[in-house]
């Protein structure tokens, strides 16, 4: 057990005691209102993650040796519920969800020691560098090259749609080390220092008007061979195999999040006298059902992992289920509110600071990022059902 945990946790703690202890901590140390200024906001978030880590409350699913809590799945559920309820900042960057499982599984001991704790504590923000302008959904076609020169790779190319890249310290990238025709067989997984010479990050404005992602230009960037995860040309397998657990944990987190969001929408509907409309009521019941299904799906996936070691088919569909849900929910909220929903956060009269209309816009990305929903449906059909490959698609 980590020392931080020992100082606070009783030797035998019931689930409800754990929940109460976590809730008390989150309430007591809540970092307060989100600063509007971007620089202040980043510092505020980093402080909070450090507080959390130092108290032993970071990384519910992570091994203890890298600073995590190594909770049982049941406790992870409680953790996510409380974390979401407390409205405290989430982790910065996508390292925890995406890079960490890969590093934990395939990284060397040295890499784990060097990268994991600073990532979990929020000292270093990690961002993904997978997509490229010409390789959106077809990652096999990526063009960014890495040429081995002695003990370094020299990386050249362009990445795009990278959330958090504007504040990132570290980029985890897929790069081509094989021939241009090698497709998924010539891809390598590299960890790139975002401050290294030759790295340029250009923030992109998204359709909400905010900056949520960036383009990354890589020009003769030198990356030590020791920062390669796994073998050369084996990056594609690495990037894919770590998705099962991430998905399960992510699904549970999203279920807890949307439980809260739906409750807030129902409260808003009641407050405005809209819930008494039978059509609205039926729609709200439909969302209630879907949010409950999300949770049941996640619970079942987690139980299935515990029992059989594999997440099972419900897990493959969780992302599609959630992304469709969040689009539908926000649009329904807007439609229910009518014209009033058209006021954005810039207008003092906006409903709940424009959250619903902003959600309507921002969730457009849900079915695009990390593989469009079309690609996901292909994958489900082929991997879960074994339907044949499209003959006009590269294998």
């Amino acid at each position, binding site marked *: 057990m980590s020392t931080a945990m020992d100082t606070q946790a009783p030797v035998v703690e019931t689930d409800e005691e754990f929940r109460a202890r976590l809730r008390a901590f989150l309430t007591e140390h809540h970092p307060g209102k989100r600063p509007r200024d971007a620089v202040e906001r980043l510092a505020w978030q980093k402080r909070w993650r450090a507080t959390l880590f130092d108290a032993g409350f970071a990384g519910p699913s992570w091994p203890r040796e890298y600073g995590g809590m190594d909770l049982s799945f049941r406790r992870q559920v409680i953790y996510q519920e409380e974390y979401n309820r407390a409205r405290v900042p989430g982790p910065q960057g996508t390292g925890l969800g995406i890079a960490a499982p890969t590093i934990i599984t395939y990284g060397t001991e040295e890499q784990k020691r060097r990268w994991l704790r600073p990532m979990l504590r929020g000292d270093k923000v990690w961002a993904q560098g997978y997509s490229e302008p010409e390789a959106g959904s077809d990652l096999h076609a990526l063009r960014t090259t890495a040429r081995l020169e002695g003990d370094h790779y020299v990386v050249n190319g362009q990445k795009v749609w990278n959330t958090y890249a504007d504040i990132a310290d570290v980029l985890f990238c897929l790069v081509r080390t094989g021939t241009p025709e090698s497709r998924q067989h010539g891809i390598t997984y590299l960890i790139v220092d975002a401050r290294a010479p030759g790295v340029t990050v250009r923030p992109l404005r998204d359709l909400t008007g905010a900056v949520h992602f960036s383009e990354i230009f890589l020009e003769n960037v030198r990356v030590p061979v020791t920062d390669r995860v796994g073998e050369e040309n084996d990056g594609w397998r690495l990037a894919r195999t770590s998705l099962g657990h991430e998905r399960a944990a992510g699904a549970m987190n999203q279920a807890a999040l949307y439980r809260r969001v739906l409750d807030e929408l129902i409260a808003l509907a009641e407050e405005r006298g809209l819930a008494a409309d039978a059509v609205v009521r039926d729609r*709200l019941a439909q969302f209630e059902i879907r949010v409950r299904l999300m949770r049941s799906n996640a619970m079942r996936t987690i139980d299935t992992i515990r029992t059989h070691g594999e997440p099972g088919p419900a897990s493959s569909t969780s992302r599609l289920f959630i992304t469709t849900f969040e689009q539908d929910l926000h649009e329904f909220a807007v439609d229910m509110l009518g014209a009033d929903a058209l006021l954005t956060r810039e207008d003092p009269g906006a409903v709940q600071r424009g959250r619903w209309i902003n959600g309507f816009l921002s969730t457009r990305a849900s079915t695009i990022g990390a593989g469009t929903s079309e690609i996901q449906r292909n994958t489900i*059909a*082929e991997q879960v059902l074994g339907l044949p490959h499209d003959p006009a698609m590269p294998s």
Partner: protein
Amino acid sequence: MTLAVSDEQEELRRSVRRLLTDRASTADVRRVMETDEGHDPSVWALMADQLGLPAIALPEEYGGLGFGVAELSIVLEELGGALSPEPFLSSIALAARTLALSGDTEAAARWLPGLADGTRTAAFAVSEPGRDWTLEQSTTRFDGTGLTGVKTFVIDGERADLLLVTAATDEGPGLFVVEPDATVERTRLGVLDPTRRQARITFDATPALRVDTAPSRLRQALDLGVIAVAAEQVGVAQACLDLTVEYAKVRTQFGRPIGSFQAIKHKCADLVLELEAARSAQQHATVLADGGADTDPADLAAAAAVCGSWCGEVAVHVAKEAIQIHGGVGYTWEHDAHLYLKRAKSTELLFGTPAAHRARLADLLGIGGGAR
């Protein structure tokens, strides 16, 4: 209690499936559905004698095997997948389980052993013309000595040895056991689903024994019925999807398997998504149902409403797409797709429509007040 399926449960599933494959394929079902009985008594006897299925989820003290809703659901899922016409849902999952749940030990001791060993069957008579699967505003009444009223869509009600009947009394909804006699008129209905017999039953001052139970238990029995039906719906949907996916792999059009077309793939992917959620919903409800005193009845009711709204719609959706994907062949009488569709559409509506389940969920959660 877990939502994952244990190895023992998988073994149960395999046993049931083996029996059905050997003795009760859909070809057998087609033959049997034209007979007067409407099911195959020899298959029912095998289910009872060889696998003890009727006993599976009944209490040991009344001749049962003492397993829970998890095991009951596995049996229902397999029977659903095979479109079985055997009276398992009616006699065991609905009638016998309701009697066991009632808390009336005398009634349980008197009737359950005969149901548990499969020598007798019971039917559960709830719906009335215009009132589906509800206790509210029942027009069937018990006046202290006899039952009078009309029940309809009683599954396997025409030939059941016992009838378990819900009826209004001066003290609210009550439960009664009837052994059909001359005062009971049973008429076979002409229904959509040819694999499941249903009857209209008229009682006219019919002698009936009151089961000593509370309205809240009765209400819960209906919820458990919906959860049982959801297990069957998952089975129907899974079998029908499997059938369709197999077809899509082998049927070629335009020189390639139709399953390689995105339109078919994406349809099937959406069906998997819906079906996996249906399975999660049903298993979640099962965990609550098997939770005993730890389970808040309101949670169980909400879980039942989720099943009632979602699982039936999913089974219907799968069956409709199965016909679409099969094309002309799927539209013929000879192909099984329509039998799945008919079973799916029937169970979707017989136990309260999806819209009614959503309204109940909204009521349970207090959404929109009592508004309608």
